[in-house]
């Protein structure tokens, strides 16, 4: 087993994934706070649509997809759309646009999706670089975004009352989320990214004693779940994405069971 884990073939993927498994849950906790954990699915649907559109116009799929995700974040800020429902609408819009573009141009829709979705075992130096870029962006911007995010959640009137340039940090966070999820999807695949955003944050929200520990706990849960899944996938020779989901759902079920509503008597 250990020799598999240290097989140089899987070192770069292991490292890149580890980075994302630590970062995505932090973005996930912020998304959970804002009730926007559906972000990964919403943005991914927009990204496939715009990857396809990009191909029609001769833009490489990767660039088209990234622009689509970032554009989705920007449009969300612009429409002042908040909450999961915004991403629900994104799913619908992206999905139908993909099908309509597919039906009216010479480009296959399935191909577009598989082009913008990565698989961990393919991760190379480019994905690692993207992960490091995400790390840098998070270290630079998350600390200063944290306060406005919490404030907007608990004191929604403060922002409006002070004509704060709220759109600036909303845009910042929406773009950071979109970018982070795009990098996650390109590296881990959509399902792994969705799982890393949703599950560790959900567990941490139940158990953590404070916001600080929510972020730390979510990140640790992500990392531990990731490592277990990595080993399990290698051992059992399985695709990584679904094993990661399984590895994260286990602890979630346990948490849910432990924290089930107190019974009477």
């Amino acid at each position, binding site marked *: 087993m250990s020799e598999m884990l240290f097989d140089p073939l899987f070192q770069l993927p292991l490292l890149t994934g580890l980075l994302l498994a630590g970062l995505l849950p932090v973005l996930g906790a912020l998304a959970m706070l804002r009730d926007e954990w559906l972000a990964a699915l919403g943005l991914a649907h927009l990204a496939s649509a715009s990857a396809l559109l990009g191909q029609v116009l001769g833009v490489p799929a990767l660039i088209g997809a990234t622009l689509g995700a970032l554009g989705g974040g920007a449009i969300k800020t612009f429409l002042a759309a908040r909450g999961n429902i915004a991403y629900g609408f994104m799913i619908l819009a992206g999905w139908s646009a993909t099908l309509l573009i597919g039906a009216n141009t010479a480009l296959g829709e399935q191909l577009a999706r598989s082009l913008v979705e990565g698989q961990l075992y393919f991760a190379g130096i480019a994905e690692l670089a993207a992960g490091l870029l995400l790390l840098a962006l998070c270290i630079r911007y998350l600390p200063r975004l944290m306060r406005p995010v919490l404030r907007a959640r608990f*004191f929604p009137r*403060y922002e409006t009352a002070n004509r704060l340039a709220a759109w600036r940090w909303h845009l910042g966070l929406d773009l950071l989320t979109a970018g982070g999820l795009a990098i996650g999807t390109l590296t881990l695949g959509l399902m792994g990214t969705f799982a890393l955003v949703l599950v560790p944050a959900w567990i941490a929200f139940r158990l953590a004693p404070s*916001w600080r*520990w929510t972020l730390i706990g979510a990140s640790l849960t992500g990392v531990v779940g990731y490592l277990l899944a990595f080993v399990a996938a290698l051992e059992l020779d399985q695709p990584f994405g679904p094993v990661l989901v399984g590895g994260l759902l286990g602890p979630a079920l346990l948490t849910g069971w432990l924290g089930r509503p107190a019974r009477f008597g």
Partner: protein
Amino acid sequence: MCAPDPRPLLQLDALVAGYARPVVGPVSLWLARGEVLGLWGPNGTGKSTLLKAIGRSARVFSGCIELESGATLAHLDQQPVRLPAMPVTGRELLRAAGARPEEPERTGRLPDVLAPLLKRRIDRLSGGQYQLLWVWSALATGADLVLLDEPTNNLDPANRAALIEILGRERDGRGVLIVSHDHDFLERVCSRLLEARDTGLVEVRTARGPGS
């Protein structure tokens, strides 16, 4: 009645505000720094709507709201925001509001009852505990104008007295506008008291006159 300060912190001029339709006004009032202005009146007369209009979250149909330029606002809703599962401590909540619980010299002394709550998750506080934290979060921000809506809800007599004491200390150059149904409370903390009637806002005498 003369303004204690030639340039008021807040001045409403024949303000008509509401949502899809106007629900309150025309209302004229002014508030100077150092004042605690109370507003009371029957349910549904538009007191909260007035606060929201000042806080830019209700629609203004006519009239105008003038705020001293650069003045910052803290506006609390009538119902505190309580979310099902929120792993945020009291201290983190205060920080998010802009208060510095560690620096009492800047934001005023923290009420004694609050100190032990700062380490706990806010979703595990009792109704009154959260209410006090919530109101304190607005006062501790250093905002120039503080809008409070029914701050005495859920408070026991001791905490209500603590709030009265805190508000009594608030005369240091900021303005506070309080909506409440607790007439006794308003009498104790307000320098002026307005009553919402059908005819509009009417000034009522209070125990603490202006500048008392």
